[in-house]
């Protein structure tokens, strides 16, 4: 604890020094950060039923607000107890992140809350299914091959995001975000159901919600450096 109190004072005096030394003024960097979701990339290697890629990007527009977007593509075969189906499609998520983490000096880390609106187009293919027999006497519980396919399906949903990004090396950021999805509208395959939607993930009978996450690695391309006015620095102390 003492150590933290000490470092607090030390950092405090550093900011005080910054006031005096004009070469030590805090700057805000503005630029484009682009990256990819490593979890989808990794899963594509170890899960034979999954191939996916998500490219992420954000662009700072004010001290705390970043425009953010994700674009992705997935091809997933889901093997449930009674249905096996393959979903293929793409999605685009656009929105903004509000950073509420106060950075020291030149750092550009984030703990943020975000909002997205997402649109997706996809296809579903029913590969195999099982009949649910009320009475098991006849012993029919085989998988039945289908192959029926529905193209041109669409869905729209909203996402609430909680995440962080930390600069691990110069201009290289590691990020993690948790997401709550709320389905706004979807077109269902007639005679089947959207049990999985690319970008939205698994659907539930009990409601229009879904969950998701990503683990990103991004590169920051600086465009503008803005110095903060000394007044801002003073107000920090």
């Amino acid at each position: 604890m003492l150590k933290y109190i000490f470092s607090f004072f030390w950092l405090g005096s550093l900011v005080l020094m910054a006031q005096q030394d004009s070469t030590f003024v805090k700057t805000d960097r503005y630029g484009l950060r682009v990256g990819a979701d490593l979890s989808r990339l990794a899963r594509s290697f170890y899960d034979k039923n999954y191939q996916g890629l998500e490219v992420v990007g954000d662009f700072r527009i004010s001290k705390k607000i970043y425009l953010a977007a994700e674009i992705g593509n997935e091809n997933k075969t889901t093997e449930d107890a009674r249905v096996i189906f393959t979903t293929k499609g793409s999605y685009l998520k656009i929105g903004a992140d509000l950073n509420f983490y106060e950075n020291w000096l030149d750092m550009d880390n984030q703990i943020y809350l975000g909002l997205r609106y997402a649109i997706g187009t996809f296809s579903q293919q029913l590969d195999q299914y099982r009949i649910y027999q009320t009475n098991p006497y006849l012993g029919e519980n085989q998988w039945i091959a289908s192959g029926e396919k529905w193209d041109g399906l669409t869905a729209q949903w909203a996402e609430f995001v909680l995440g962080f990004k930390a600069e691990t090396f110069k201009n290289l950021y590691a990020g993690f975000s948790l997401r709550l999805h709320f389905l706004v509208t979807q077109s269902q395959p007639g005679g089947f159901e959207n049990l999985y939607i690319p970008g939205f993930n698994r659907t539930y009978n009990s409601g229009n919600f879904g969950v998701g996450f990503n683990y990103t690695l991004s590169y920051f391309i600086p465009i503008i450096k803005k110095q903060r006015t000394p007044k801002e620095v003073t107000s920090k102390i």
Partner: protein
Amino acid sequence: MLVTTNCEKDDICDPATETTPMLTIEFYDAVETTILKNVQNLTVQEINSNERLNFNSDLLGTPQYTITANKISIPLKSLELQTTYRLIFNANNDDTKNEDIVQFNYQTQDIYLNRACGFKTIYQNLTQPIVSNPNNDNLFWINQMQVTNNQINSSKDVHVKIYF
């Protein structure tokens, strides 16, 4: 990965779901054709099966394979367009038991229910059942059969009447 846990409520087929319907048969008196009549100690066995249909698994031994009632429900095959049953009357008495063989022919349609239950089969265009006798001895206990509902969408409906 967060969403692949397998103990969600959505993963258990709700017992209240109307899954694949069974064929429901009512038994009537052959003379007084409007009067429901209990069939005595009936045993039902699919023609190629080694096991008898279990009517009441709460009972032990032979009683669970015999039924005395005026209404029974029996499953039909979903993967074939025909199911043949041996209907054995007075099955618990070797001297008086009488076996008739009944063949049901129909068409099927598989309908999606939900993630947990998968699909169900409904049966359509059930035709007049074909009754035969294992020994060709012409000792039929079934006097007449009548299809009253050729669309099998629910076990709660009555689809076939047997007069005996």
